[in-house]
């Protein structure tokens, strides 16, 4: 198995397959999970008929339905921008997966500045959202786009600052390096080496800030003001239909996947699970990572169906008055601990 993975071309094919097919596929699974979980939280049944058992084919059926729809472009819309926007959003989301390590080998490119790249690529989606809002020639869409931009400025900072603590602790920005740093034993009890993910090594505040900021970045409740169905009538999505709407939709769930994957890698030990022999990680690694991602995705879904939406100014004050100072304190604390210990 591992000899096969040494082959460059086999590895490349696997990587491309993951980005191009597996990730939209997983996004479909998350869509289905959201349908079912929300249904059970609301004492409903959810999808039931499509595909036979449990309505498992519902997201597929939805996708096929969307593809058959007419691709409407509003008359006053800025056509090229309007058409490019969903692609920018989807590309920005998929580009993040370049640096997500699914196993020691299964990573498209282990960049030295991996974390930095992930955050930079992830924020490209906001440009797409802004493009969509602006080009739709719709006041609600424009407001949604502007809200998304304001949100990005407010939440990119805590997101980056929350990660800095981990980077200090690991001493590297390479995603694989961060996982390896979490495999290093922290201390020994007799013969047993205790290996802890960074979450249990004192990055609790960092993790909390990261997840909150990630929610805002993903435009998920309670930070879904750019979409805000009851206020802005879906905001920047208002004028989109058919396949272009599907792209936004897929990007949302793929974004949930990528953000959760980054959080799992940085704070929860990524593809590593204490007790699993390191030789088996090539095979088991992706499964371990997916389990952690699923847990985080479940939390994100859970929050969405529990909380109302904040107001834009409340979101700003939460970011600037609480999250950023907290994140700075977290960095200072981590740095001191790193030097002292």
């Amino acid at each position: 198995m591992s000899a096969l993975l040494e082959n460059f071309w086999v590895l490349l094919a696997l990587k491309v397959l993951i980005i191009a097919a597996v990730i939209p596929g997983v996004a479909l699974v998350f869509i289905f999970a959201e349908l079912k979980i929300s249904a059970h939280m609301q004492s409903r049944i959810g999808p039931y008929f499509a595909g036979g058992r449990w309505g498992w084919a519902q997201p597929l059926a939805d996708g096929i339905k969307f593809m058959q729809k007419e691709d409407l472009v509003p008359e006053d819309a800025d056509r090229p921008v309007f058409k490019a926007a969903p692609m920018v959003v989807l590309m920005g989301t998929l580009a993040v997966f370049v640096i997500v390590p699914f196993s020691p080998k299964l990573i498209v490119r282990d960049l030295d500045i991996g974390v930095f790249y992930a955050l930079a690529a992830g924020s490209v989606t906001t440009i797409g959202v802004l493009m969509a809002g602006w080009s739709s020639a719709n006041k609600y869409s424009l407001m949604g786009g502007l809200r998304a931009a304001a949100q990005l400025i407010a939440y990119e900072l805590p997101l980056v600052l929350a990660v800095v603590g981990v980077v200090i602790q690991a001493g590297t920005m390479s995603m694989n390096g961060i996982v390896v740093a979490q495999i290093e034993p922290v201390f020994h009890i007799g013969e047993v080496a205790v290996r802890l993910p960074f979450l249990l090594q004192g990055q609790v505040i960092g993790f909390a800030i990261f997840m909150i900021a990630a929610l805002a970045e993903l435009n998920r409740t309670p930070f879904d003001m750019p979409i805000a169905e009851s206020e802005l009538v879906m905001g920047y999505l208002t004028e989109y239909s058919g396949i272009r709407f599907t792209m936004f939709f897929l990007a949302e769930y793929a974004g949930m996947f990528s953000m959760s994957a980054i959080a799992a890698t940085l704070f929860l030990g990524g593809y590593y699970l204490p007790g699993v022999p390191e030789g088996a990680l090539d095979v088991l690694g992706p499964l371990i990572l997916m389990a952690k991602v699923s847990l985080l995705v479940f939390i994100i879904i859970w929050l969405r169906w529990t909380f109302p939406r904040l107001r834009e100014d409340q979101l700003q004050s939460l970011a600037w008055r609480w999250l950023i100072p907290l994140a700075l304190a977290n960095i200072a604390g981590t740095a001191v601990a790193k030097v002292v210990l």
Partner: protein
Amino acid sequence: MNDQHLLAMHHSEVQVSVELETPDVTLNLGPQHPSTHGVLRLVAKVDGEVINEVEPVIGYMHRGYEKLAEVRTYPQIVALVSRIDWVSGYASEVPLMVAVERLMDVVPPDRAQYIRLVLTEMARISSHLVFLSSYPLELGAPTPLMHALRERERVLDLIEMVTGGRFHPNFNRVGGVKPAAGAGSNQKKVVQDLPEGFVGQTLAAIQDVVGVCDDMEDLVLGNEIFLERTKGVGIIPADKALAYGVSGPNLRASGVRFDIRKTDDYLPYDRFDFDIPAGESGDCFDRYWVRLQEIREASKIIRQAVETMPSGDLLAKVPRIIKVPKGEVYVRAENPKGEMGYHVVSEGGRGPYRLKIRSASFSNLSVLPWLLKGQLVPDVIAILGSLDFVLGDVDR
């Protein structure tokens, strides 16, 4: 000397504040908008997200009920008025019947009055449950909707059990109540009483309704974000509320303890023990809280009423063809949405000469231009929702 040079000189001499010119944008909220409860239209002048001026445009749902009533007989009008406020259809029928009965000098039997009262309070519960469920939805929380609507279904089932209809019972007759069930020739002969098992099922449903109130208190009122969004938002002071003719729970949320159930005698409310919950500040939170407490009070009334329900006739002695003597009367009632009044002018025929309908939502909405000035767009939605209006009740 070119212009730029002049400008530079000018700048050096006096302090000029150069502000970016930001003209107001006209934003049409509605008539098709998910949060305007139908076809309300707000023409808002917005600066960014701040509302500078707002003008409600109503009339998209005007159905001309006052005019329609003039060419119909009194029993026919009953079917019309339950469609004014369709969320609590039954409650609108009662004051009209009371008005006609007063003109005819007829007093309905006790049992009929009790049944009217129980059904009115059930309509109140179902209307308030719709509000309790849809308001969090407007703030972005979809889950309370399902929880509250599930219990509302229990109440609607009870209304259906008695009247045969969930929303538009058409159950009142001049001089009492008579079920619509048993159509055809039966309808003339059979006066069907309350169905079997009604009392037991009512008590069980009431318990569930109070249970969901507790759930809502935990799930919604205990939610930090909900408090952030509603506390101190959309405050209507008591004097403003009175000046604009705001009534019902919206008025009581502002601290005015005024309830027509206590002051008027259109139904025998004086025989039951219940409180009038009132808020303090008149913000969105108080309006939510007051309605939640009113469900508990309504449950109390229903429990007392079904337990002490007198036996007897359902219909007073009235002629087969209702003819109302000349005269006019105004009867008002405490409907779920506020004060509902009917001014009936009779010229002595089978139908009214003129019927003026005073509906609560219409007056409650009149406060909007004053209230929404200077608010943010998200708060506009929060405030609109908290006023709990129904467009049919606004336009009639």
